[in-house]
């Protein structure tokens, strides 16, 4: 059993892939928190708690839900929007939920506009700019999500959640697997359930800038 834990960074310039440190993926019905396999129910509660604690809880939808490839993708997009609306309802004054798309995987030169998008090749720019301290990836192809989650862990202190439609992500601090409309909405229910019971981590501008 590995002693390594997937924790908010900044870990260091080149953080190891969590898989190479002995972290493995959950089986169906399970999730992982910091690399420890847990029942899925526990992960809903923890993800909701992290969102409600964060100063800038943010959802990053990727191309698999941004584009209506099929009916299922459009339904997932609607669920993502619903989750964002729930988050806005449930946060306290001073918290600023955001919904920022990842429309393209290609590196953008000469610059990215971090206010309106995130790019997997330099996700830290969007996180730093908006002072994001908790984020969730959804609808991002696995390879790009892994790359991005590792960069975030390496260079920022942001807590990362992956709502993965496949087998999950070791490099996220919390990862679901087999994401579906029902699972996205269930996370929304947990956020509603914990509303008012979690103290937000409201920090000064100076400390949050150290993200």
């Amino acid at each position, binding site marked *: 059993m590995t002693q390594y834990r997937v924790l908010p960074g900044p870990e260091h310039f080149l953080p190891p892939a969590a898989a190479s440190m002995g972290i493995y993926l959950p089986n169906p019905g399970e999730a992982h928190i910091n690399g420890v396999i847990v029942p899925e129910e526990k992960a809903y509660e923890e993800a909701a708690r992290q969102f409600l604690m964060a100063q800038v809880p943010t959802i990053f*939808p990727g191309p698999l*839900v*941004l*584009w*209506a*490839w099929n009916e299922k*993708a*459009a339904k997932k*997009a*609607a669920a*993502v*929007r619903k989750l964002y609306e729930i988050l806005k309802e449930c946060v306290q004054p001073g918290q600023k939920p955001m*919904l*920022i*798309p990842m*429309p*393209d995987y*290609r*590196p*953008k*030169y*000469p610059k990215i*506009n971090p206010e*309106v*998008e995130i790019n997997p090749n330099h996700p830290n720019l969007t996180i730093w700019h908006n002072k994001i301290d908790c984020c969730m990836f959804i609808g991002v192809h696995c390879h790009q999500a892994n790359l991005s989650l590792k960069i975030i862990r390496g260079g920022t202190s942001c807590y990362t959640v992956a709502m993965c439609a496949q087998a999950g992500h070791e490099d996220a601090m919390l990862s679901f697997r087999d994401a579906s409309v029902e699972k996205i909405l269930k996370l929304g229910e947990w956020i509603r359930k914990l509303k008012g019971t979690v103290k937000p981590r409201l920090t000064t501008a100076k400390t949050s800038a150290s993200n």
Partner: protein
Amino acid sequence: MSKERIKISPDLYDIMPSDYQDLVQSATYGKEDRGWKDIGTSKELIEQHSLCAGCPESMAFRYILASLPNPEDTVMVGSTGCTSLVFPMVAVHNIHSLFGNQNAIASGLKRALSVRFPDRVKDVVVLAGDGATVDIGLDMTLQAWFRQEKFTTICFDNELYANTGGQESGLMQKGFVAKMAPVGKLFDKVRLPEIARESGCHYVVNCTVSKPSLVEKVIRNSVLIAREIGPTYIQLYTPCILEIGKNSMEGLQEMRDSEKPTERFAYKEYVSEPAKQFLAELAAKDKERKAAAKQLAGKA
């Protein structure tokens, strides 16, 4: 990315950056008569780019992307060089190959697309610099032509390795002294258009990008001939203004000077017999289509 096939999820439409919304709403995907005249009036398939101010390569990119007959079903294969900095900004599927590998990648890609999509027309267009096409990738370039692979090869000829500071390339003109080639080129510019013709290309053009309507015609012909008959090769002069000591505003004039009848980029075209026949049939069909459209408009 045909707009009939690709739609933004309605619930997340408002958060998509405006570039992507515009691509769906006002790009020229699926438009039969698309061309350089759409530039400035509809969403272009390239807007920002990371090239130097006034770089003729950026003009070439604009004209080529506006002229592709079937951009939603086209895959471009790029290579190392200034062009590889632009591809992330291009709204056409594209692949970055290893330096010089581009025609080998394109060969496999074209064959795979034919197997995967037997009922759909898929075009493959290679776009690489002179270093990738003539020096490092000459083997792959020629072998693709020998095998009669059905795709277009476009070479952006700036006559040196501009991206790395100005080293000598095979397409550099004899006697030219570059920043990193102080002795001056000792032998003649490689005559790749002639080699292309002898290697089996059915349509070969050597020109500059000073005239957008000419670029449009050349690109359209080359893609359509490659689709139906066999390999085509286009060599476009896109001078590196920095490496030849020009200012941002002087790129266009440099191209005009280089395309005079006695100069090395005077317009040269080779069309094989099957390609000639194909173009004639195409022109006849086009005429028919336009006449029918005119008649229909008259009735309306």
